[in-house]
């Protein structure tokens, strides 16, 4: 039996070729620093997570409304193009020419007339990724050409499965991945429905390049502990405070999470935040127009922070609606793209309000500025120590079940539990420690009745 144990202290490559990383006999509250720095772990994440039984955000339908419209994105480190074809369906494929491996679609977003042509040797693909043009295939004047047995049908672009939910386009490399809605679970699907049942439109993009492991970003968004401690703006203005009524929902398989805060009536902020030095009760803004919000939903949710495994991070608060896609570049670096949204039927006044609230988020945002700094502080220290050692995320216990308060790191633990399930080597017996077949995610919701977490109004 080949069952590679995961060693939390060192980066090693076993003689069978797979990396050895953190040992999973420990609690999911133990976070091995090697997972942030080990190139072998990073390489295995590409295979087992980004090309594993997982759905990834690739585009919004509204970004590619017409046949020929495309976007270039990444799934993990793999360049992927999603486009709308003549049949109005959306197709996704790896952006690598089947001939010599060149990048085919060179633009960031745009429109093409029915085909994509690689500039190197003019190999041409249709919008479903099928090879439809090969120069000199039959040779020139009887010389050269591809062999008789060359079959263009065998040399298309590598395609992905695509599924669309409420105008959000997801894709997966894995033919064995469960249907998208099963992968997400009912609670997450309902939260997407709350925010995306009206048509949305993009009002801007913003990008950050951060020198930290991509998982630190995912954990950051699952971390209800830091929200009002690192971010003084948060604690003062109440987008997210641990003193608020809220909950941290974790999918049954651990990987997805939703942090939700509710109306703050009765919140004892001053009493509970009294000892926190970053809390600035005296802060006032001379011009607070960017905090002016109108209520858009008839439920008591104030802030909704959704993390869909592995790297789709959705945020709604005030009238801010947007999400982040995380693109790993190396063990120690990732890029993050914010997509800022409004609704298609927004009045000019509402758009104005949303644009002002962009000041709160993104690279320079009053609320989110500190995150990139904190992540880089972590990466600097853990890589400096060679990835040795283990962090502890035990606020609120050591398990991974949904909790009805915000004083918890439960969503971080859930992430690591799911990550471990996918990263475990496939032993001969096919099982991992928790009884779930290794390399397979258990369902997001164990029963169809997984209750929606939005309380009644």
């Amino acid at each position: 039996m080949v069952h590679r144990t995961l060693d939390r202290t060192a980066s090693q490559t076993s003689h069978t070729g797979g990396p050895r990383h953190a040992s999973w006999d420990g609690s999911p509250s133990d976070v091995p620093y090697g997972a942030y720095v080990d190139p072998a772990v990073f390489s295995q994440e590409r295979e087992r997570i980004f090309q594993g039984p997982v759905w990834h955000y690739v585009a919004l339908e509204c970004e590619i409304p017409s046949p020929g419209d495309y976007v270039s994105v990444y799934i993990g480190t793999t360049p992927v193009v999603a486009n709308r074809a003549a049949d109005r369906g959306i197709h996704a494929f790896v952006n690598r020419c089947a001939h010599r491996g060149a990048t085919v679609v060179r633009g960031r977003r745009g429109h093409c007339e029915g085909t994509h042509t690689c500039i190197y040797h003019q190999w041409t693909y249709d919008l479903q990724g099928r090879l439809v043009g090969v120069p000199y295939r039959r040779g020139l004047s009887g010389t050269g050409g591809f062999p008789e047995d060359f079959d263009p049908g065998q040399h298309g672009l590598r395609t992905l499965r695509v599924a669309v939910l409420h105008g959000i386009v997801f894709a997966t490399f894995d033919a064995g991945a469960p249907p998208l809605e099963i992968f997400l679970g009912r609670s997450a699907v309902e939260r997407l429905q709350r925010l995306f049942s009206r048509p949305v439109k993009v009002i801007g993009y913003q990008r950050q390049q951060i020198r930290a492991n991509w998982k630190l970003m995912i954990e950051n968004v699952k971390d209800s502990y830091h929200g009002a401690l690192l971010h003084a703006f948060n604690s003062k203005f109440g987008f997210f405070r641990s003193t608020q009524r809220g909950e941290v929902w974790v999918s049954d398989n651990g990987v997805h999470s939703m942090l939700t805060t509710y109306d703050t009536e009765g919140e004892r902020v001053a009493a509970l935040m009294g000892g926190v030095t970053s809390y600035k009760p005296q802060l006032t803004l001379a011009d607070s127009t960017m905090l002016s919000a109108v209520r858009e939903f008839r439920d008591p949710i104030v802030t909704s922070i959704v993390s869909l495994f592995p790297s789709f991070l959705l945020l709604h608060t005030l009238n801010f609606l947007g999400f982040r896609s995380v693109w790993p570049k190396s063990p120690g670096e990732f890029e993050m793209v914010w997509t800022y949204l409004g609704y298609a039927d927004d009045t000019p006044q509402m758009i104005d309000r949303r644009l002002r609230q962009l000041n709160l988020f993104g690279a320079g945002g009053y609320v989110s500025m500190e995150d990139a700094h904190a992540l880089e502080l972590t990466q600097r220290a853990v890589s400096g120590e060679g990835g040795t050692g283990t962090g502890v995320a035990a606020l609120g216990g050591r398990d991974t079940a949904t909790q009805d308060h915000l004083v918890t790191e439960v969503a971080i633990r859930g992430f690591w539990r799911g990550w471990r399930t996918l990263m475990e080597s496939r032993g001969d017996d096919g099982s991992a420690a928790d009884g779930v077949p290794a390399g397979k995610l258990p369902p997001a919701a164990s029963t169809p009745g997984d209750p929606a977490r939005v309380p009644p109004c």
Partner: protein
Amino acid sequence: MLNEAAAGTVEEDGESASLEVRDRIELLNEAYARCLDDGQLERWPDFFTDPCVYRIYPRENMEEGLPGSVLFFDSQAMLKDRILCVREVNLYAPHSARHLMGRPAVRLLLQGGYRARTNFMVVHTDHEGHSELFAVGEYRDVVVETRGALKFRERTVLLDTFTVRSHLAEPL
């Protein structure tokens, strides 16, 4: 409305400004850079009229006709709030900055004032002495004369480096 601002101020350009005006705007740029590079952030709002527009605008959004900015302020109060928060509230990586600017190209605006375009680079140096290009782009300004001094009625920092290196706290 910010939507209009996204498309650029809708005013017709006139002829090129005189060399004297261009020199004055170059001096304005120099003073602006000196203020930021010396860390005198409290003086930064003085370079603007009230109301005004200051925004850091990703080139990606300009190319795609989208209005979203990294930062958007349109009053003296918002500029002062930014400096207050940078000083007292937000946390960010300690660094020093150097603004390097080209000469401005200046045209008269038919309704008065000037439109100036100036290339810039900003280099950051961290607390251990490593210098790194932080941003390159172009200032797209509307400059007006108020009580004998030139001020920015609008300064759009068009960010070619639209993937921000980590985070952005102090004004560009």
